[in-house]
């Protein structure tokens, strides 16, 4: 089987259809890239500040790269920048920031966009950042509570790994579980697209735990795989699960899953870190 000719180039196809496809291909919906980029920058910047002030153990501070004419506050692409950030760190170092951004920055920015039709990019950026910073603490707390709920539901089913957990494991489960704040205008149904944001927040939590409490990190990754079937971040979650298994000394399982990971995601940005698990195991 080979690629078919494009319909709009296929003389066997009706002229009217080809003409319509050609018009559609030539039509680009109006989209305000400047305003959209300002929103993206504001949201990322709003999350970058608190994340860099409270670095997770073993994690480099978020290294931000200015984008074009952006001011020092409007940093973008922190986790994506190539300068000194490689492999898993490059891919995951911004997880905490993006989790906050998802729960605070984005909703704040969107609320502003709804209230203020087409504001100037610079003003929008500053407003969104200030508001998002004010809300980031509570948003983070909600993320934690959601994670704690999710994790506790499956803790018993992971007893083998549980037995190897560190003393720090009980801390989060002992923490008070706070109700998730819901905007009055939102219903449970309208929050359905926020599955992605919950997935991002959960991944941030796994990343935070993987060094200090790999057992919990592993359980949470397994929970995430079940909760977010078909989710967008399975690759990142699985990489963390492999790292957690390796840290727990579950060598055989770590190797098996590392090989599966490399076979499934041969071009993954996380490939180097997963391969390192295999190398470390071989050298022992």
């Amino acid at each position, binding site marked *: 089987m080979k690629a078919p000719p494009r319909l709009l180039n296929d003389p066997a196809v009706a002229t009217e259809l080809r003409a319509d496809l050609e018009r*559609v291909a030539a039509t680009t919906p109006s989209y305000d890239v400047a305003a959209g980029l300002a929103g993206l920058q504001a949201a990322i910047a709003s999350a970058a500040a608190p994340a860099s002030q409270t670095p997770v153990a073993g994690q480099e501070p978020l290294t931000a790269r200015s984008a074009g004419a952006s001011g020092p506050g409007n940093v*973008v692409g922190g*986790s*994506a920048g190539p300068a000194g950030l490689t492999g898993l760190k490059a891919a995951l170092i911004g997880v905490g920031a993006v989790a906050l951004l998802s729960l605070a920055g984005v909703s704040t920015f969107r609320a502003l966009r709804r209230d203020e039709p087409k504001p100037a990019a610079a003003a929008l950026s500053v407003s969104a950042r200030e508001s998002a910073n004010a809300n980031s603490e509570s948003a983070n707390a909600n993320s934690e509570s959601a994670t704690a709920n999710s994790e506790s539901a499956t803790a018993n089913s992971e007893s083998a790994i549980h037995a190897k957990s560190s003393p720090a494991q009980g801390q989060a489960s002992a923490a008070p579980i706070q109700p998730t704040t819901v905007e009055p205008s939102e219903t449970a149904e309208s929050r359905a697209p926020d599955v992605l944001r919950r997935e991002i927040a959960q991944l941030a939590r796994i990343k935070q735990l993987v060094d200090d409490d790999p057992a919990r990190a592993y359980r949470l990754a397994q929970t995430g795989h079940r909760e977010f079937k078909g989710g967008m971040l399975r690759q990142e979650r699985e990489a963390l699960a492999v790292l957690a298994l390796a840290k727990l000394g579950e060598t055989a399982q770590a190797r098996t899953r590392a090989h599966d990971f490399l076979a499934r995601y041969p*071009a993954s940005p996380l490939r180097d870190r997963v391969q390192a698990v295999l190398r470390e195991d071989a050298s022992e």
Partner: protein
Amino acid sequence: MKDGRGKGHQVNDGSHPRDPASQDRLDAAALFRAHAGFVAAFLQRLGTPAADIDDAVQDVFLVAHRKGGFVPGAAQPRTWLAAIAVHIAQDGNRARRRRRELYDASAIDAAVAGAPETDRAIDARKSLARVQQALNTLDLEHRAAFVLYEIEDEPCDAIAAAFEVPIGTVYSRLHHARRRFVDAYAALSENSAGVRPKLAEGT
């Protein structure tokens, strides 16, 4: 061939230090500048209502950022972003179904909004409406393959890489999508002008 394919996708413009371990990355801001318009159009053609486009575009690039930006490989930036956009659109569609909201024509209006109502603009609006109606008969994965290949002129190998499926799967999706699209379009045309387009033999 349009911009954004082939050589147009070279991302190492010299302004970014090269990272030998992870190759050249295209971060969220660079991706946004280069491809936000494409993503908005793609989401619209997937059936995302105009009112949700801005948020959906933001979500696509937030996920792109979280994934560490685009790393050159078999996939191209546009097809890589399109694969993310399909997930975002899927989540949005599920939510709308739960809210019992139906797709409306607002996206089509938005696509030509601001353009003067010349004959050409009116023709474009009618074309968009017909094509969008036919597209709406396809399921999401077939629609995505069809839009990327037939409208956005993306190569099949890049689509396969971005969606992490064999290239034969892309051909198969295209095959089914083209048949369904042509049938749906023919039905629309019969209703309006009595013209039934045909599909080439063997496609």
